[in-house]
């Protein structure tokens, strides 16, 4: 086993990895920015080193500092977590050159999956289906696009090559209307990005985001740990994940799992990774991308399989063979994760900073929390707003939902706003309960205000408590005034002295 592992990350995922180190009996090293001196990951590690100022580019993204610290403290491996440097080929390369094991895939696999066009080409060669389209095929003329369109099928999207944010995007439902829409899209893209190039992509209607967890060792053994349903997103940020997906059955799981394994093998993948798919209404699935790292939502897979993914990552990196074969993997019950973010769901999900003054943590059967915060912790504006992951397990999906509801009810975080009310409203929605949602559900068909006629709507209780609090404050203020009146003895003497000398 490794002697000492450096965790090149912060927050809940650093704590998660440190726990795995501890449970494996490996010494652990934390790194921290000036804003994170009091963070849990610093407190839980065996050693801790300051990286630099709060902004990530001056601290958690400093490859040179990280390698220097790892060398100085004698760490023989680095775990990158997710985000920051986790999918940076140059970081994996720098570790390799410093003779420190990077707990993740080889630099070549990161590179192959990091470029979307290369990734599409690679997995297509391995027989993996991709979203039909012309992305990565260079600049095509209108005539070329019009010729390709019927092969992709309608409806389809025209998208700007340079773009994003919907600029230069057009929905096309037939070949007839396409020439005019192509012109409009190119004009808009030219105006917005100075680049009129566009490409075509099949519109996946009612798409669901389904991803498969992969484990692969250095000896060519690759298995999958089933799927995670991640369609509940807002601005491309996942908010809730569940495993298994409510719409994936055994047959589809087997087929998608086989394809996921094939995609990983196509880049000779090693360690833990995730293959993301889009699944359409007709249960066709398309490769979207591969995340060559540990995923935020890995705990739901741990809950249903009983496998500790982080420990497996470390064992694989050490050169061990996989502990499990595909046949060993059993899926037991259902797990859901809610990402608790410091943001205000009643105010456009604006991030919230400040000091956490009180936490009541839901506990009890089937509840797991991964977090890096505690009462007294200061949520700063420097890093992402994820402050906790609330994960529940139930014998069935129904039990898991009921358990998540009661866990959310128990969860109190005072001092910053959180999106807990969003999750509560979501868990109560009939569409979620029925498993009927797609990637556009949260943004297009969900509202925090739609639940006003159920039994949880109790404005009179809100009115009462606000009145009682106001009343108490008024009474307390009155007492202070009275106390001050009594507590003036010194001033009486002073007043007397002044009167005498007037």
């Amino acid at each position, binding site marked *: 086993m490794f002697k000492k592992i450096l965790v090149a990350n912060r927050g809940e995922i650093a704590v998660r990895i440190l726990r795995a180190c501890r449970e494996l009996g490996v010494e652990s090293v934390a790194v921290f920015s000036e804003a994170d001196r009091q963070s849990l990951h610093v407190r839980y590690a065996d050693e801790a080193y300051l990286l630099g100022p709060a902004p990530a580019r001056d601290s958690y993204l400093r490859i040179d500092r990280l390698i220097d610290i790892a060398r100085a403290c004698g760490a023989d491996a680095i775990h990158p977590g997710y985000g920051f440097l986790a999918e940076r080929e140059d970081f994996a390369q720098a570790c390799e050159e410093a003779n420190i094991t990077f707990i993740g895939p080889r630099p070549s696999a990161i590179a192959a999956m990091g470029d979307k066009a290369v990734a599409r080409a690679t997995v297509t060669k391995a027989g993996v289906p991709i979203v039909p389209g012309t992305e990565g095929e260079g600049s095509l003329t209108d005539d070329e696009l019009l010729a390709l369109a019927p092969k992709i099928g309608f409806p389809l999207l025209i998208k700007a090559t340079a773009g994003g944010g919907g600029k230069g995007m057009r929905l096309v439902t037939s070949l007839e209307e396409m020439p005019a829409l192509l012109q409009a899209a190119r004009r808009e893209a030219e105006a917005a990005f100075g680049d009129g190039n566009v490409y075509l992509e099949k519109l996946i209607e009612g798409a669901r985001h389904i991803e498969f967890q992969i484990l692969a060792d250095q000896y060519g053994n690759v298995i999958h740990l089933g799927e995670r349903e991640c369609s509940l997103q807002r*601005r491309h940020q996942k908010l809730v994940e569940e495993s298994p997906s409510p719409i994936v059955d055994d047959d589809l799981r087997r087929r998608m799992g086989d394809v996921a394994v094939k995609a990983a093998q196509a880049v000779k993948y090693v360690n833990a990774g995730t293959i993301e798919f889009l699944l359409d209404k007709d249960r066709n699935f398309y490769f979207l991308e591969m995340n060559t790292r540990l995923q935020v939502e890995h705990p739901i897979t741990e809950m249903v399989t009983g496998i500790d993914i982080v420990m497996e990552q470390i064992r694989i990196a050490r050169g061990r063979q996989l502990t499990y074969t595909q046949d060993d993997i059993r899926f037991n019950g259902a797990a859901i994760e809610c990402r608790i973010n*410091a943001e*205000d769901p*009643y*105010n*456009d999900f*604006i*991030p*919230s*900073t400040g000091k956490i*003054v*009180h936490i*009541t943590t839901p506990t009890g059967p089937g509840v797991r929390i991964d977090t890096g915060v505690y009462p007294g912790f200061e949520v700063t*504006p*420097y*890093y*992402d*707003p994820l402050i906790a992951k609330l994960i529940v397990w139930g014998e069935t999906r129904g039990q898991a939902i009921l358990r998540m509801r009661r866990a*959310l*009810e128990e969860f*109190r975080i*005072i001092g910053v*706003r959180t999106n*807990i*009310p969003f999750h*509560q*409203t979501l868990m*109560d929605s009939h569409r979620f309960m029925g498993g009927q949602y797609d990637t556009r559900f949260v943004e297009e068909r969900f509202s925090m205000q739609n*639940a006003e006629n159920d039994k*949880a*709507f*109790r*404005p*009179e*209780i*809100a*009115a*009462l*408590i*606000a*009145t*009682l*609090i*106001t*009343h108490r404050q008024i009474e307390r203020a009155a007492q202070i005034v009275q106390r001050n009146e009594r507590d003036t003895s010194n001033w009486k003497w002073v007043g007397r002295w002044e009167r005498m000398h007037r």
Partner: protein
Amino acid sequence: MIKYIATVAEKEYEIEIVDEHHVIIGNRLYEIDLASVSEQAVYSLLVDNQSYEIYTYPGDSENLQVFVLGRMYDVRVEDERERRLRAQAGSTVAAGGEYHLKAPMPGLVVNIPVQEGQMVEKGQVLLILESMKMQNELKSPRAGKVSRIRVKPGESVEQRTTLLSVI
């Protein structure tokens, strides 16, 4: 006996505090027991033995934001005297005056898609502030004219800095 008027979502509740353990809401007497939990803004309230756990945040201006059973309520509480004064002053107080857009958190001003003197709609984006790796659109709470912009794109601002005003 002190009488308050609490307003939630434009509905008014008349609440009389009889004593520490009794209130009258509308015409009904309720037995209550209020306990403050761990000296924070968390309360346990029993109302005729129904148990509610509640936490609060200060809301805009004089209001209190109350969370109960997973819902947020914006509550304004007035006593009878305040209420009379406000009635005499007319009800247009809230809508008028200059609105100052303040930074809800520390961050970096990324973009200001409006100009001084420009008319804006309710809900229109006034400024984009980057914080916690997210770009946050700050919107106008009402229609009006942008009267003064006090920051520039690229500027770092502290929490509660006034960014611009709408008149």
